[in-house]
């Protein structure tokens, strides 16, 4: 079980919640379950998000593991220059 914090744009799509609890072992499961429960988030996830796991920011590679009780933040996909 991980607590997934949503950034501003996602919150109204999750009924206004600042965070949701999801049972997921990796990013793939997280996305699947999030999209299932809150279908409005799916287009955002498809477009690409960044995932912060315990303070480290990752891309959206499905295999990336989510440690138990990790602090997860979904953030906008960050551009670079």
């Amino acid at each position, binding site marked *: 079980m991980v607590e997934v914090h949503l950034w501003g*744009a996602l919150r109204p799509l999750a009924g206004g919640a600042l965070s949701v609890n999801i049972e997921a072992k990796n990013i793939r499961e997280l996305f699947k379950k999030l999209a299932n429960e809150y279908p409005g988030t799916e287009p955002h996830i498809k477009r690409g998000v960044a995932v912060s796991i315990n*303070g*480290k920011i990752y*891309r959206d590679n499905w295999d990336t593991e989510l440690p138990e009780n990790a*602090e997860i*933040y979904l*953030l906008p996909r960050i551009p670079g*220059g």
Partner: protein
Amino acid sequence: MPLDTSYVQKTLKQVGTRPLRPDGLDKVTGRARFGADYNAPGQLIALVLRSPHPHARIRKIDTSKAEKLAGVKAIITSADLPDLTNGDRNMRDMLENCMARKKVLYDGHAVAAVAAIDVTTARKALKLIKVDYEILPHVTDVDEALKPSAPVIHDDVFTDGVEPKPTKPSNNNKRASFGHGDVAQGFREADVVVEHSFKTEQTHQGYIEPHSCVANVSPDGTGELWVCTQGHFVYRNQCAALLGMDISRLRVTASEIGGGFGGKTHIWTEPVALALSRKANRPVKLTMSREEVFRCSGPTSSTSIDMKIGAKKDGTITAAHGVLRYHGGAFPATWAEFGAMTAFACYDLKNVKSDSIEVIVNRPKTAAYRAPSAPMAAFAVESVMDELARKIGMDPVDFRIKNAAKEGTKSSYGPVYGPIGIGATLEAAKNHPHMKAPLGKNQGRGMACGFWFNFGGQTCTDINVTPDGTVTVAVGTIDVGGSRASIGLIVAEELGIPYDHVRVVIADTSTLGHNDMTDGSRGTFSTTMACVAASRNVVKELGKRAAKMWDIPEDAVVWEDGHAKPAGSNAGNFPPLSIREIAAGAGNTGGPIAGHNEMVADGAGVSFATHICDIEVDPETGRSSVKRYTVIQDAGKAVHPTYVEGQYQGGAVQGIGWALNEEYIYGKDGRLQNAGFLDYRIPVCSDLPFIDTMILEIPNPNHPYGVRGVGETSIVPPLATVANAMSNATGVRMTHIPMSPPRVLKAIDALKKH
């Protein structure tokens, strides 16, 4: 087996040294081939017809006269670029930015393009194309565009992030907020509050090489593209999508790139060249002029920021609130959000809020510029921080140290930090000799901090051991500043062979799997990570071959100092086999020896920097000159320290130019007035002192060698560093970037009057 990317401390033989880069010789002799240095036999020259209006409806385009001109082989408009984007707004905007469809949205927006046998004919042809425009009112200022009186540029854009959902279209395409705590309460607890509004003008990445490409499309639907780009795979994918080609049918070869800094991460002229080539059935060369690059490629945002920070007398910040308005040019984009996320990232704040407001204006489509959106936000935050420190009577560095984020701090953008380097850079700054150097008349010193994310991404590499035992490494990450040398060092280190025996090349899109662009400071970070994995695969294979040659089990072989050795005396008494000897026998032992890796490199780690600047200001003219500048930044591990220094220095100088001189000047007519290097004044050699650098090495736990991204962060602090120095030199708080002589003089004179 996937690579264990955790950092392992070890004694390094090659990484950290400073060998010569492999492309150096070609670049000092003029042999290296950049975007415009390639010509295809039978090629046509293309030119683009661009809108002279910042906002207008296209009633009609008449190309008939131009088409009859001898030597003209193809003319295209948006009719030749049908919309295949299937509801993908991003791709559709990209397409529309390449060639205007119903409206022109900025001065310089492409309307048509011509391919002819030479440039003289192409120029004549452009003049013969008649466009009937219905001129519309325009708006180019980020704050003006938000007023109710402003013309709404897109009638199908509604503000995202507001409840209830608006029904009227708007130039404000998105709003968002970040932060935690209760800022209202926090401000009530403050003893001192400083509040200012800031403006930063639009700047361009300023790469010296204009965009250039040669496109060659065959009637069977295959195509080739030679182009200067920060990401040839991304260009391939996007061009193929827009032109309706299968991705595998478009082969993109990247030239050497003459600077990008984020400005060559987006397609813009390439689909036009491909469409012309497709229509003319001949290769087409399209090179932008400098004027076109400034006028209508992808500059960064201009911004308007409100910043308020409050603190107790003992220096503890109690609340911080920023409202950031950035524009994305003429298309809906997200840029202010990254300013909002990075603004307060250096600090440990109990109550913090940043609101981002994205705006659309009649200016070219904004592109990333080295740590996009962060420098402007840092300018606002660090200026207020400095003033707050002064009002409290605290040393500016100590004030920041007191409030610096550390491991366990909840960042202003959400997640809790792991181990981070802001504290280290501040301590280093505090103790740096620059801080103690005496200042002269009319001189002031300033410092500031900055933050950037850095990221990894899809990376693919191929290492091949050639028959003589030397090694070729094919990578797909564009080398913008010397990364081939760093990659060579890592492979040499892993294989235990001399650096000179490793040759790194940038492969084209047909010979390697997808690689993300060189942006996000990911070039060296991602590619070295993938090369470590690929190298270890090579080593495994070399071990297998040695085992075969010795007739012993595979697990009885170890790899040491570039040689295969029996694992112990039990395995056998064989003299070590060099990579050369194993390679010589490859034909017998199983064929060519290679190691390959595809991965999503990740965990690049955030980075922090602290800069110090001494500036001298002439009170009679407002002219300023930077006397001394120091960059302190954590690189994790400097694979090739000279190139890390180079990144620090280059980013700092871009920031200095941005702080003091560079700006886009739009007239009332909505047209860019200074589309050239004469009047868009970037720093020249005589403007600057040497740029001192201090590389801190706090290993990134997520990379086998501890490497962090380094390329972008050094552009984040300079706007504020220079502004703080300026403030200390003149006694005036500058709130408008750039702090050009007229602005400084005006501010100094206003102060004198009081």
